[in-house]
């Protein structure tokens, strides 16, 4: 299958040296790595915010030449919840964004209602941004990023201030988008349990991507440790239980694990 995103031999001192990344359409990729290894910078390069000489192709278009066209297919949530807003209220931000992309008034209203009902933020639409809590800002930004039905969604530590239960709901919605509309999702996260919601994992270490595989194969303790990371709970549990010969293969689902241990 064709790659929807292709970065080849990216060189960016001092963070990346000969970095290559190919992402297939319909992936749900988690990019992880220690603090400061350049994950956010990778996104900025991918979005054309930081110019580089390397070949970057998104949706079969070269980034250098078609930046404007490419940006219309991408939704982004940046790390700092405060930096995601230009206008005064969430509704204004949404309206202006859609207008910039050329949507008609009626379609704008329809999409805003649809997305906000899905994420349950309709009551926040007309509040001043500065009055919202960190978690609420992040929810609104996510809704904003999905308004224009992008084909790629980039999440940079997008849920750091959202509590665990709400996060579960959000990931359920995102997985639905990923399955049904083949939305390619790439998330950067520090929460190791968030990576289990995805399908693939990529690790950045020593200026390169040292691992990029389906999550079941990627959860190897030695590699994670070397990159300064720890395994998600279920992966760590599986790895240790396997060591004691209590299970044969890694199990990532809690119920399945319980049933396997106590048949």
């Amino acid at each position, binding site marked *: 299958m064709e790659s929807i995103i292709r970065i080849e031999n990216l060189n960016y001192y001092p963070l990346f040296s000969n970095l290559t990344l190919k992402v297939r359409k319909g992936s749900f990729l988690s990019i992880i790595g*220690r603090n400061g290894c350049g994950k956010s910078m990778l996104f900025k390069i991918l979005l054309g915010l930081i110019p580089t000489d390397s070949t970057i192709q998104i949706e079969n278009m070269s980034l250098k030449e078609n930046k404007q066209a490419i940006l219309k297919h991408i939704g982004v949530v940046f790390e700092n919840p405060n930096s995601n807003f230009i206008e005064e209220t969430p509704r204004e931000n949404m309206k202006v964004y859609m207008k910039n992309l050329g949507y008609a008034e009626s379609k704008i209203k329809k999409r805003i209602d649809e997305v906000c009902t899905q994420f349950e933020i309709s009551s926040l639409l007309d509040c001043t941004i500065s*009055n919202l809590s960190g978690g609420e800002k992040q929810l609104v930004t996510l809704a904003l990023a999905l308004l224009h039905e992008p084909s790629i969604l980039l999440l940079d530590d997008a849920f750091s*201030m959202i*509590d665990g239960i709400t996060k579960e709901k959000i990931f359920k919605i995102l997985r639905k988008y990923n399955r049904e509309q083949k939305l390619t999702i790439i998330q950067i996260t520090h929460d190791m349990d968030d990576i289990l919601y995805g399908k693939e994992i990529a690790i950045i270490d020593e200026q390169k991507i040292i691992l990029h595989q389906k999550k079941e194969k990627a959860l190897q303790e030695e590699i994670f440790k070397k990159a*300064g990371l*720890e395994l998600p709970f279920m992966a760590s*549990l599986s790895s*240790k239980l396997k060591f004691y010969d*209590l299970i044969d293969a890694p199990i990532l689902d809690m119920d399945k694990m319980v049933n396997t241990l106590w048949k």
Partner: protein
Amino acid sequence: MEIKFNDVSFTYNKVNYQKKEVLKNINVSFPESKITGIIGKSGSGKTTMVELLDALLLPSQGTIQIGKFVIQKQSQLKQLNDLHFQVGFLFQFPEEQIFNTTVKEELEMGLKFYHYKTDQIEKRSVDALKMVGLDTSYLSKNPFCLSQGEKRKVALASVLILNPQILILDEPTIGLDAESKQSFIRLIRLLKNRFQKTIIIVSHDTDFLLPIVDYVVVLHDKQIVMSGDKYTVFKQVDQLKKYGIKPPKVIEFSDRVLRKKGIKIGYRDEINDLIKDIYRYVR
């Protein structure tokens, strides 16, 4: 030193229309020389509660007692000046509040303001750095050039230099990677065990809190809905989920085993202890 909330309520009188009630009739006491975790859904009032403890906000109703200090609506901030020498506060994302270009100046700011003697300041700077696990070579480094974990430790040292007996940490591990998190856990344990500090941590990361706290307080919808020793609170997995809190996975696993197989394997802090229990009960 007693730390107590007596029927405290707080309403934001923001200059924008609606008054926002954030806390209602809070009554709680924090045990001395122990680590207490405050958990709750985002927006449940956790940060407000701890800001009240350090007189960064004044309650709309009720009193807060910290040792000999009493904070109430009519309190004069001037009288509460010395409170900050008793209660230290580490904000969220302290990396965004760096004032100086050397770690030495950053640490000394507070004491210099109160005209402490230079040799005293130097000694306390070194002690504060030692408390957070950084050596004296950091004194001449530029805080802007440090890693995120190191920046946070420097921020913590700038608070510890005033030698507060009570320490409040607001989401100390947000945005940190695994190595830095582990380092922080060791640091907090050290502060409690060696220096007998009373520590209050606000976090929504229950996995981080589980191995270090003794006592847990749960905030939901402006009130305290649960409080008690950590296992008592954390093992009520369904209740916690109802309050929007994800219980620690180690505990959730034991709970799942209990529910599905009726076997009580006990509640543990860490995955290694859990493994030992599983091994015992499976064989």
